[in-house]
């Protein structure tokens, strides 16, 4: 899907299993509720972007955060999947991800 931005400082690389933090944090959050606490894997490193959680309140969004494309098996997210290999993929910031087994 196109060249991924290689970011030497990024914590995760494609293939790494990750778990989305389950946090109930106030403010402008771009990590959807349905994916919090779920485990998937890194598909792509999108690159570094200004932090929307800070931009939303008129701040400058710095320091930039690494954004990842994270893939999940549908069954792992919803407990069921219409197609056995169906997936949901979400763009998630590094500070919302922990390493998983």
């Amino acid at each position: 899907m196109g060249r991924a931005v290689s970011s030497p400082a990024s914590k995760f690389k494609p293939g790494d299993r990750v778990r989305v933090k389950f946090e109930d944090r106030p403010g402008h959050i771009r990590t959807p509720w349905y994916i919090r606490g779920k485990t998937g894997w890194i598909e792509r490193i999108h690159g570094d972007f200004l932090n929307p959680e800070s931009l939303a309140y008129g701040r400058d969004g710095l320091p930039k955060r690494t954004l990842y494309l994270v893939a999940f098996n549908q069954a792992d997210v919803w407990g069921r999947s219409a197609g056995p290999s169906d997936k949901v993929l979400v763009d998630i910031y590094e500070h919302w991800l922990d390493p998983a087994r």
Partner: protein
Amino acid sequence: MSRGHHDVGGLPDAGAIEQSEHQLSDWEILADAVNQALGARGIKRTDEMRRAREEMDSETYRDMTYYERWIASIETILIEKKILTKDEIDRRLAEFEKEWGEP
């Protein structure tokens, strides 16, 4: 704290997708253009607007149409940044309503 009213992925009881489309009204085109113009001038950020919509009262949020929500968030952010006041908007609207006639 709980999920925001905008955070709807996976919520149950969603119905069929209504595929009919409506031609945009003048006021919707204007809302869209004002929003984009404010962004182009660096006056507001997309995430500020999203946050303003997320902070709206849930019932109001669900009752408003898409561009009505945009207009409400444009107003909220302009007032927050002290570019306009609610009073000014109310007064200008009252002047226009006199011009436009009774509903």
